[in-house]
């Protein structure tokens, strides 16, 4: 039975996205998720991380960005990307750029909580082959 959990929190510098993606990829590899399935997950989560670190950088104080991933034995992967930045009005959140469009194309489903107490929270669900 293969399963696992990953939680990372660190200041949301633009340079945080890359090592966080790499940690997620290595986490998935350790859980025997084939590369071809990893690619899409990393692409979607990469967008969420890019938004988090890009947005956070606009303020003067740098909040944290956190990534939480959980792979269950049935192949369900849930990933949260949470940032502590002041979020932009919800109307602006939807489909302005490519980011969320890409996330929506890849993830089985998403939950965007722009009113999360601690900033913006994007939860993505992926169905892997298990």
């Amino acid at each position, binding site marked *: 039975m293969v399963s696992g959990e990953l939680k990372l929190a660190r200041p949301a510098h633009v340079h945080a996205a890359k090592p966080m993606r790499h940690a997620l990829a290595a986490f998935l590899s350790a859980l025997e998720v084939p590369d071809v399935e990893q690619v899409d997950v990393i*692409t979607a989560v990469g967008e969420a991380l890019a938004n988090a670190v890009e947005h956070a950088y606009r303020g003067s104080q740098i909040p944290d960005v956190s990534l939480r991933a959980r792979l269950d034995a049935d192949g369900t992967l849930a990933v949260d990307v949470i940032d502590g930045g002041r979020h932009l009005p919800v109307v602006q959140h939807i489909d302005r750029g490519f980011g969320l469009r*890409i996330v929506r194309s890849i993830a089985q489903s998403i939950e965007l909580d722009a009113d999360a107490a601690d900033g913006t929270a994007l939860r993505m669900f992926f169905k892997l082959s298990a």
Partner: protein
Amino acid sequence: MSDRSTFEVIKLSGELDVARKEELHAALVIGASARAILLDMSEVTYADSTALTEMLRFSTQAERERVPVAIVATSPQLDRIIHYAGLNEVFKIFIDRGEALSYLESAS
């Protein structure tokens, strides 16, 4: 394309993410004498939407200036994100450098 000296190559590599936005912005410029551009992304292993946005800006400007751009992309991630963003109809993507060059020959 008869004059090969006006044929430009822009080579990018590694992971083109949000941290490299400004570097990418500076790299994706159309030379004054360029008649055709080969954007060699064969060594790019990852791109996010901030990179796609820069690529789209570049491609749009090139079209306005009637400078054909051929993109060489081999990484599965790059190929897939371009599709997810719906940009595969906008960019001229080639797996093979030779084919990209043939396209530029015929288009310029």
